[in-house]
C-alpha cells in the first residue's frame, strides 16, 4: 500500500490524460514521453562507449 501511495503521488491516474495539439497532430503526453525516452536511449546507446573485459572500449 505504501508503494502504491508513493507511485500514486508521482502520477495521478484518476484524471483525464493530457494531450498535445499541434496542427493536425494530436498525441498524449504519456506517449510523447515514451517517444522522448526512446530517442534519448537511442542517442545514449550510440554515444556511451561499450566496455569489454579488460577495459578496452
Amino acid at each position, binding site marked *: 500500500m505504501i508503494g502504491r501511495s508513493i507511485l500514486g503521488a508521482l502520477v495521478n491516474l484518476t484524471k483525464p490524460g493530457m494531450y498535445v495539439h499541434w496542427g493536425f497532430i494530436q498525441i498524449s503526453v504519456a506517449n510523447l514521453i515514451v517517444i522522448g525516452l526512446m530517442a534519448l536511449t*537511442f542517442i545514449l*546507446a550510440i554515444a556511451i562507449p*561499450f566496455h569489454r573485459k579488460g577495459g578496452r572500449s
Partner: protein
Amino acid sequence: MTTLEHDTSSSPEEDAEVSKQWTTRIRRRLVEMLPPERLIPDRQPSFLSSWIYIFGALTIGALAIIILTGMVLSLEGPGWWHTSSLGLFVNSMHLWSVELFFFCMVIHLWGKFFMAAWRGSRQLTWITGAVTFLVSVGAAFTGYVSQTNFDSQWIATQAKDGINSTGVGAFFNVLNFGQMLMWHIVLLPVGVLFLTGLHILMVRRRGIVPPFEDGVNDKSATVASGTQEGTPS
C-alpha cells in the same frame, strides 16, 4: 554382443540410395545454408562492441517474458486480474514486458535503419523484421481489446469504424471478444514467434551488418559475417 552390434559398412549402391533420400537432401541443404558454427558462433565481429547492438537481444528477452506471463494468464483467464492480486501482478508483468518489447524493438529498428541493415543480401532479414513489427502491433492491439474493462470497450468501439472502413471488419470483428482473444493468444503469437525465429536464422545466416566504415559497399558488407575473427561472444 553380436545382436547389439550394427554393421556400419555399406555398399556404394546403398550410399547412393541414402543420398537420394529426401531427409538426407534436406539435412545437407540445411547444414550447407546454416552450419552449426554460424548458427551458434563462438566469436563475434569486433564492431559489435556498441550498446546499439544489444536492443535486438533485449527485444527477444522481453518477448520471452511476454510469452511466459501470457501462458500463466491463460491458465486463469482474461478476467483473473480483476479479482486476484497475483493475477494483477502477472497481468502487469505482461503489460510492462510488452512496453519494453516495443521500446527495445523501435530502438533496434532505428539503429538498423541508419545502418542500412539490408546491405549485403540482407533484404529478407530486414523484411522479416519489419513484418514482425507490424504483426506485433496487431498482437498488442488484440491484447488491449481483451482487457475486459472500459478501456478495452472504448478501444474496440473506436477501432471498429476504422477497421470496417478497410473492409477487414467482415472477418475481423473487434467487438467480438472471443474472436479477439483467440487472435491474441493463438494466431498472432504464433505469427510473431515464427517470424522472430525466421529473422534470427537470417541474422545468423547472413551475419550482422557491419558499420559503413568497415563495409562501404554491398560487396564488402557481404564478406563481414558473424563468424569472422573478432571478440569472444
